[in-house]
């Protein structure tokens, strides 16, 4: 049995099911990270002015985080290029940019790994202060999202790309939807970076 509007757009909404689904999912993600940012605000306001001291003690690595920001922004660019290549029907270029996107995610995680281990070497653990606790909670959850987005993209770039030969439109839509998620994950980092490292 075929579900209507899986590929073709609904005449009234102008969207297919997947597009609506991914946007709804992203609204729930906004609420998830929104609650964590609200937690951040509550902890900071309730810290009796100790926040700056806790932040200084944590010694977050601003140059590495800046590099990571650049890596993620680059991956958003390659994500769009991958989708645009599919729109033009260029499977080879799609695969190139798709794997580049996954690779950027990998580079981000490797840098994040070095950041985390540097913290642990200095005995900065989540239990050390509420600043480090919310730092590890939010960046950790964000890293899980990066892993999820990488898996999603890797599937469509690898085995899922067979769909190109049978239903190109469907594959293009799916890549667009995974791209929306990827951009969202990117956007979360754009908020995390100043909140933890710069403010």
């Amino acid at each position: 049995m075929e579900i209507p509007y899986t590929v073709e757009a609904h005449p009234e909404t102008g969207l297919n099911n997947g597009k609506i689904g991914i946007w709804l999912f992203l609204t729930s993600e906004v609420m998830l990270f929104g609650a964590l940012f609200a937690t951040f605000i509550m902890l900071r306001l309730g810290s009796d002015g100790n926040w700056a001291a806790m932040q200084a003690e944590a010694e977050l690595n601003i140059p590495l985080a800046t590099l990571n920001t650049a890596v993620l922004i680059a991956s958003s660019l390659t994500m769009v290029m991958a989708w645009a290549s599919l729109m033009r029907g260029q499977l080879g270029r799609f695969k190139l940019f798709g794997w580049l996107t996954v690779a950027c995610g990998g580079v981000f995680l490797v840098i994040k790994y070095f950041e985390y281990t540097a913290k642990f070497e200095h005995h900065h653990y989540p239990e050390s202060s509420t600043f480090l606790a919310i730092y590890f909670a939010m960046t950790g959850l964000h890293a899980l999202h990066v892993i999820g987005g990488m898996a999603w993209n890797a599937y469509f770039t690898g085995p899922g790309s067979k769909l190109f030969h049978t239903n190109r439109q469907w594959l293009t839509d799916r890549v667009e939807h995974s791209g929306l998620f990827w951009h969202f994950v990117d956007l979360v980092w754009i908020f995390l970076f100043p909140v933890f490292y710069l403010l």
Partner: protein
Amino acid sequence: MAEPVHASPAHDEHHHEQSFWRKYIFSTDHKVIGVQYSVTGLAFLLFGFVLMMVMRWNLAYPGEPIPFIGSLLGENRAPGGIMLPDFYNELGAMHGTIMVFLGVVPLAVGGFGNFVMPLQLGAPDMAFPRINMISYWCLFLGGVTMFASFFLPNGAAGNGWTSYSPLADIALNGQTAWLIGMIFLITSSLLGAVNFITTAIQLRAPGMTWMRLPFFCWAQIVTAFLLLLAFPPLEAAGVLQLMDRVANTSFFIPEGLVVGGEVVDRSGGGSPLLWQHLFWFLAHPEVYVLILPAMGIVAEVIANNSRKPLWGYRSMVYSLIFLGFMSFIVWAHHMFITGMGSVMSTFFQTTTMIISIPSVIILSALFISLWGGSIRYNTPMLFALGFLPMFGIGGLTGLPLGLSAADIPLHDTYYVIGHFHYVVAPGTLFALFAGVYYWFPKVTGRKMNEFLGKLHFWPSLVFMNGVFFPMMIQGLNGVSRRLADGGITYDFAGEVAGLNRMMSVSAWCLAVAQIPFIINFFMSIRNGEKAGRNPWNSTTVEWLAPSPAPHGNFDQPIEVVRGPYEYSVPGSDKDYVPQAEPAST
């Protein structure tokens, strides 16, 4: 039928022939998933009820050995059959959690929403059938986790269904299992919510405009939005509490917390109030998740059995949407006694008074819908009619709790328990029973037995009130709702402490009153009176499908031409005109 179909060239022509596992276990058909959800929900409702019946023993006969099962509970729960207070706490916490997250929500949203809504929309299935399947199995894993936590060395979570920190942060292992279970349940609800909304937007049959949607579908849509937007903050809070427990962080632990006479070795700096805010930001909308689908079911049953259109359909729909919106800004009325300040209290008691208006509009519209109808008193209708005054009592007793001044003396008493249970037990549960009796023919092709149905309804109505009304009396006398012995050690409980026995006996009788339902349920699957497509002479689209409906639902194209409740239309040859029946020329 249990034999898997072997792949062979001969079977290639039969695309729809699926193995047993694909057809009944890992099915992507919304109807099968709806039944899976419903059966799981009903089973957990029974289990949660059993937990409460054991608790009620200790409330009525504190310090006396529990009969029959006391010796089976083990020395660490009930030495010599006498319940320990810690075990009472476990039962209380798990009763709340199971009833809300594993009983009512799976049945009302996962079960009825999944089964009925696509049929009412005229859709062949949900928009994302595989996500639908995953959503059920997440719920199942969450249920298994919760159930298994009883067998941990230190027992299940015992910190209330609200799991307030810092108590829950420093409690024993059960709480960790609770949090892991909740993360499964939340994931399940999120996936379901995305699916429901997308289905309602995209898969309505031609002609099914928004204002032709049955009220039940509207209730499910608003509910799905509540789940979608309110659950993630609890997921965040759950992750943070899990970190507090396993990574020794201090999100919810203030500085200098003393436990057992010693200062806890944590960095501190966290806020117990933060947990309450995050929890109630979910849990207040959650209350509407429990009640809105119930209102939807009652609206369908009442329109059908009063043979009249719903009175004020549009205002009901607008009230529903307003209710959904407002439910996000009333959460802190659960926190009046936390000392968050009178400015906050004023804001939240104002929004709370405002949110009562749409609820009253919906309830009034349902009452007025009865006026002048030729009412059929069948079992679904009896339960729907029972819902109206019971929910009315529940709602009206909530008003004093919404005003911060009145809430302060009432908050920690049985009055709150009585209020909430009137909303959810004889309220929502009666509506859910109405739904089971009403849609049973669509699921199985057979009706449930009317006599057994009435034998289920009347005692249930009496004993429900027998359980919950005395709680109001006790609460107004100031009996605390957190005492394992029912308050007999306190002088002020004095004369009302005796009501505990009445409530407990009522609860056990209520259990006996469910036996006709259980017999009826299983007996009717095979031996019930055969029902055609439309046994209730109903107008909505689900009754145009065969009973039981095949994969893909409809055997004819559906084109909706009129509103959902065209009953007793003057000049029509029968007293109902189905939504998708072409206009007679």
